[in-house]
């Protein structure tokens, strides 16, 4: 593995499978009376959040704390950043405090890359979502959820998602989740189809390793997992579709559409959900919807990422495959 996790595209198949396998063991810790491991004792993880986020921040915080790391939460609101401090000066401050890892969420695409490659800090940088670019740990927890549901908890160990057909529906243009998922799922051997109105498909999508369709009903019967993306109203500064009602008619998932999916297929949502918009309450509350499971899996997956990046003298080595666990 590389020293930082900036993009899902940086992960090889072996890296990704190692993270998923490690997450599976981490998930078992959650079933114990003492849900804590001493592994990252004495290490400091800084959550550097320039953009509002509740679930991702508390997920990373829970993950770091379960591994006994010290956690410092730094949010732009009410901090020196609101007084005009630059990313560089913030980074130098964190470095001076001895951060072993910086988990960064930023509204600007590329901020984590800049932080990792600037030489401002020595620690590992984990991208927790940058602009409309990437959100690699979300893609990892999605892949983890898919592998658990479609391949099996124990049967999935060591395996990827080859041959599985994953459909990602909605606001692909503004979605870092979609971008990270396309890269990671492709690395794991899955076939990805993006479904969105033409206005919400990014320019250059033809270079992505996936198919694009504008017709949800045609794709649903051949999907093993359907991932509904949130319509990001806060990023909608132009008219991407005529009305919300029309969007939800053509691209929303309701009970009738769900019935057209194969029996084993699951419905995923990275949250937060807009009930009635991209997903109806009927679907959101059904057994096939993994939204809540994804939150729990998020903690396990982030524990795995933090452990593999910080748990040794250097990040885990995946190639060549050694008898490391012996």
């Amino acid at each position: 593995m590389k020293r930082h996790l900036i993009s899902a595209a940086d992960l090889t198949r072996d890296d990704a499978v190692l993270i998923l396998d490690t997450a599976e063991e981490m998930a078992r810790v959650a079933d114990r009376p003492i849900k804590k491991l001493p592994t990252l004792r004495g290490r400091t993880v800084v959550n550097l959040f320039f953009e509002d986020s509740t679930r991702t921040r508390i997920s990373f915080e829970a993950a770091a704390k379960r591994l006994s790391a010290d956690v410092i939460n730094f949010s732009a609101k009410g901090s020196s950043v609101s007084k005009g401090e630059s990313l560089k000066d913030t980074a130098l401050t964190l470095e001076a405090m001895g951060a072993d890892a910086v988990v960064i969420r930023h509204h600007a695409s590329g901020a984590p890359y800049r932080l990792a490659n600037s030489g401002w800090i020595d620690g590992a940088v984990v991208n927790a979502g940058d602009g409309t670019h990437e959100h690699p740990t979300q893609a990892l927890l999605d892949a983890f959820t898919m592998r658990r549901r479609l391949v099996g908890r124990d049967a999935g160990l060591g395996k990827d998602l080859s041959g599985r057909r994953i459909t990602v529906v909605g606001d692909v243009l503004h979605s870092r989740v979609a971008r990270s998922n396309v890269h990671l799922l492709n690395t794991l051997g899955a076939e990805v189809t993006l479904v969105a109105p033409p206005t919400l498909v990014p320019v250059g999508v033809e270079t992505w390793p996936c198919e694009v369709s504008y017709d949800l009903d045609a794709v649903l019967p051949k999907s093993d997992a359907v991932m509904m993306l949130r319509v990001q109203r806060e990023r909608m500064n132009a008219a991407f579709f005529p009305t919300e009602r029309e969007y939800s008619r053509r691209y929303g998932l309701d009970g009738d559409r769900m019935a057209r999916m194969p029996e084993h297929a699951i419905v995923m949502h990275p949250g937060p959900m807009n009930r009635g918009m991209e997903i109806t309450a009927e679907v959101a509350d059904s057994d096939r919807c993994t939204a809540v499971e994804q939150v729990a899996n998020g903690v396990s997956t982030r524990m795995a990422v933090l452990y593999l990046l910080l748990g040794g003298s250097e990040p885990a080595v995946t190639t060549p495959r050694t008898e490391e666990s012996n």
Partner: protein
Amino acid sequence: MDAHRDASPGASATSAARPVLEAPDIARVLTRIAHEIVERAKGADDVVLLGIPTRGVFLARRLADKLQEITGGAIAVGSLDITMYRDDLRLRPARALARTEIPGGGIDGRLVILVDDVLFSGRTIRAALDALNDIGRPRAVQLAVLVDRGHRELPIRADYVGKNLPTSLRETVKVQLTEEDGRDSVLLGMRATAPAAGQ
């Protein structure tokens, strides 16, 4: 144990290794340990065998089979991965994890017997004791090993030893088990280079 693995010899060193225990010896030794457990635990009703991955798990399962033959009752058996409790994590790249499987009845109030292939520095067992602490509170903890090669770095000893094997630090002890290596044997070899200090 850690160090013997950390320095596990390459193919060339293994070829020069000589067997000190063969398959029938290992079977005999495990049978004896099983009888010792029954004798000391006055039956084996509350025994939980926890193997330390990788080879300790196979040994624990074999011991459980033997105990079942002797006592006629079911024996709880599982595995305990100690990777995240090791004291040398920062000396090497992050390691892959192995499975921890605690039997359904838990370990509270039971007699836990840790099972490993080689007892060497004792650091693995120290880590295992820490790991147990997070899982429950056994009535007592004991240790069974196939080979005790000496050179302890911590005040730890085994309760059941298959074979005491006095070694020098320049020697390597390699346990092979059918489940993992296709054959049963314990090999004593020579290290290719001088041993690193400590672990």
